[in-house]
């Protein structure tokens, strides 16, 4: 297969890069990973007239080729290796026309790499509003590049950009040895020459990049790395100093270019953003408004998502019932309906909440507000060993820990990122809600305060708060234990507020939902089959005995067929492998107030918390068509055979609530943590500390309350 021409979209963060990419490619996008790293790579195959199909790749936004954040590093990794599978044939560089000087720095570096470039001056409308005037001909001549005005939001200029792309690709410009913009000093130039002897380079600047980053470049052989190391030592190369010198020289040359080509009237302080931030980042109003927004967010998750969730729930039951009736009554039907479909239903039920949460988060992100939240809470987060940027993960954790943990990639300090990953699963996610909803009824009476505040709602809120407090406390402990004083920084751009581009919001939500279904899905499907096996089969002939026993009881008490089936299911699970496991662990969980039936539910819900509810309803022989209130009644009648008291007294219920609040009952999260941290060490530590925390807290709660 002939490989397609590659076009890279590169620019600073907040340059409006994503909008241009979306306008250029439409919805036909693929999200993957850059090889060897967990950095999202968005790409698309697009057709350019008379050239044919090309591969357009959106690179993460970066300020320079000397970045500090993890995902930004992908840009120099790819660009310093002219054999990289993602190495572009053409670069479309997006610059914010209202911040030309700053945005030209990276462009200038990229140009020195000798890759053909098109410079897009984005946000044409804003630049016009501010009467920014660019002498395009002279500008393009002095920078020796083609320049296009563009408006990523409206799509104006995109057609012209495509024409330029076509023109450049048709020329197949081998770039007639353009003079590099930056002239290094003699010592640095010698380093460059030496590096070029060791590694095949297209340009001097590429050699310089290798000199700066060689320790982080996987394409170099150990031999090459050693030689580069020797060269740098020989010439006493001081990377930081050279980087600063280079940056300063580029700026001063750029300033000269801009002086003769761009007229920018002085700006007034009373613009929209400045005025809005007077309130939104105010020391008192700022945090208050943030918490107001959080409340709105939770309100949205819980009330707006209810209707679609019920719809999904009902649809799944209808499908299950339909298949159960139509297909032969055999083990494979049960595997399909009770194993696979039930497992899949358990995933898609959370899509509405996740979609709504990320709709709001990406709306706020596009608006420019999330950067303010990071700015406001950085100091507070720092005290807990976290980073201002952790706030995004912690808020997302209220929907689902999986996308939340993936969002920590923007945290540039490894220790702070790791701590954020370690504590995020303590934030109550949407999968805990159904468990809380069932148990809270036993723990708290249905009382009302002041006529409208229900006691149960208060306890639910208390549980959420407890989760947040536990996350912060755990962060504090990790901060003390973990070593590695790699310095961290804030240095965050507070971009201008602008109305969100709906297409960007929509695509972000779609990507988050897909990644959730993908990450959670593949594990939950496997686990649900395993769970189906251990709860459908038992040692020896115990299952047959259980069935006939149940039938005898049913005959004696003249049960309806439905009641009989429910009783059989309940007797079966008691005698299955899962039932034996439950009885096996009973001595361990008895001090928490749990019996073997709860033990079965703990085991089956190890893969995913929400399975608890389903297992409980099977154990208490409640048909899938009954609603939760029947389940509550049955559970309330359950008597502990040893103590003769109800099992679900408020001590056990509270203990179980606390257990589910803290325990890491989510296989998908473990898998994602493994991937994001690159080793099994961290997910195992996380599993251990959360399990211990859950066990000990439940023990204390039960022993005090009972």
């Amino acid at each position, binding site marked *: 297969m002939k490989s397609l021409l590659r076009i890279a979209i590169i620019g600073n963060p907040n340059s409006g890069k994503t909008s241009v990419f979306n306008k250029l490619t439409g919805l036909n996008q693929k999200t993957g990973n850059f090889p060897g790293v967990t950095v999202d790579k968005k790409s698309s195959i697009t057709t350019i007239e008379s050239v044919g199909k090309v591969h357009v790749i959106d690179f993460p936004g970066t300020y320079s080729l000397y970045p500090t954040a993890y995902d930004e590093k992908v840009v120099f990794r790819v660009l310093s290796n002219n054999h990289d599978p993602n190495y572009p044939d053409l670069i479309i560089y997006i610059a914010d026309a209202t911040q030309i000087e700053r945005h030209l720095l990276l462009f200038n570096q990229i140009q020195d790499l000798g890759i053909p470039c098109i410079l897009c001056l984005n946000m044409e409308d804003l630049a016009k509003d501010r009467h920014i005037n660019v002498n395009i001909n002279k500008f393009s001549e002095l920078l020796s590049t083609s320049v296009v005005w563009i408006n990523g939001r409206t799509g104006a200029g995109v057609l012209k950009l495509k024409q330029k792309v076509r023109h450049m690709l048709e020329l197949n410009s081998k770039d007639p040895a353009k003079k590099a913009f930056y002239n290094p000093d003699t010592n640095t130039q010698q380093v460059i020459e030496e590096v070029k002897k060791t590694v095949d380079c297209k340009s001097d600047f590429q050699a310089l990049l290798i000199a700066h980053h060689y320790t982080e470049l996987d394409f170099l052989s150990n031999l090459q790395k050693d030689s580069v190391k020797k060269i740098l030592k020989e010439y006493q190369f001081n990377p930081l100093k050279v980087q600063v010198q280079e940056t300063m020289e580029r*700026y001063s040359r750029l300033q000269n270019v801009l002086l003769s080509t761009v007229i920018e009237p002085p700006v007034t302080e009373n613009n929209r953003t400045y005025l809005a931030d007077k309130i939104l*980042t105010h020391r008192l109003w700022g945090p208050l408004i943030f918490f107001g927004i959080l409340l709105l967010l939770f309100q949205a998750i819980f009330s707006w998502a209810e209707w679609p969730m019920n719809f999904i729930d009902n649809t799944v039951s209808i499908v299950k019932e339909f298949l159960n009736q139509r297909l032969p009554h055999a083990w494979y039907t049960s595997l399909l309906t009770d194993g696979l479909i039930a497992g899949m239903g358990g995933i898609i039920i959370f899509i509405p909440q996740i979609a709504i949460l990320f709709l709001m988060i990406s709306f706020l992100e596009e608006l420019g507000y999330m950067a303010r939240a990071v700015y406001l809470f950085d100091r507070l987060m720092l005290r807990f060993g976290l980073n201002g940027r952790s706030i995004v993960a912690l808020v997302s954790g209220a929907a689902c820990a999986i996308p939340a943990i993936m969002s920590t990639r923007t945290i540039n300090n490894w220790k702070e990122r790791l701590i954020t990953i370690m504590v995020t699963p303590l934030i109550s996610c949407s999968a805990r809600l159904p468990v809380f909803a069932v148990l809270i009824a036993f723990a708290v009476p249905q009382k009302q305060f002041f006529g409208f505040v229900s006691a149960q709602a208060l306890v639910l809120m208390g549980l959420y708060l407890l989760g947040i407090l536990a996350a912060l406390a755990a962060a504090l402990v990790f901060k003390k234990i973990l070593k590695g004083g790699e310095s961290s920084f*804030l240095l965050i751009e507070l971009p201008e507020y602008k109305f969100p581009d709906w297409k960007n919001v929509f695509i972000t939500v779609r990507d988050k939902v897909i990644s959730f279904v993908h990450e959670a899905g593949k594990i939950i499907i496997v686990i649900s089959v395993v769970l189906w096996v251990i709860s459908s089969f038992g040692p020896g002939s115990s299952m047959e005995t259980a069935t006939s026993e149940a039938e005898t009881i049913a005959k004696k008490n003249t049960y309806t067929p439905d009641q009989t089936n429910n009783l059989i299911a309940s007797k079966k699970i008691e005698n299955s492998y899962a039932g034996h496991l439950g009885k096996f662990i009973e001595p361990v969980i008895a001090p928490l107030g749990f019996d073997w039936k709860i033990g079965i539910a703990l085991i089956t819900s190890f893969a995913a918390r929400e399975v608890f509810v389903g297992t409980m309803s099977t154990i208490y022989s409640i048909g899938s068509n009954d609603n939760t209130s029947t389940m509550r009644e049955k559970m309330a009648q359950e008597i502990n055979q040893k103590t003769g008291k109800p099992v679900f007294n408020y001590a056990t219920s509270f203990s179980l609530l606390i257990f589910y609040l803290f325990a890491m009952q989510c296989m998908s999260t473990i898998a994602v943590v493994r991937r994001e941290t690159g080793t099994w060490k961290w997910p195992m530590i996380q599993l251990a500390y959360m399990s211990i925390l859950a066990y000990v807290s439940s023990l204390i709660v039960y022993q005090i309350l009972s």
Partner: protein
Amino acid sequence: MEYIVSLETIADMEVGQTAIIREIDLSKFSTRMLAMGLVPGKEVKLVRKQPWDGSYYLNISNHFIGIRDNEAKLIKIEMIL
């Protein structure tokens, strides 16, 4: 305009004050600071500060940046009187 020469940093500025950036101390963040627009010769205004040693809100020719206390100490300035 009159300038006085001193070795002050952004951490010494009062809210509302304006200064000229003179030098960025060499650190791991130097290039990032430069790339974000904290460039010697530019005017910088301290717009606001969060309580309890909280972050600084800077304005550099209508481009806004949030930085921490220890980052502010790396940026040498000359106050405009």
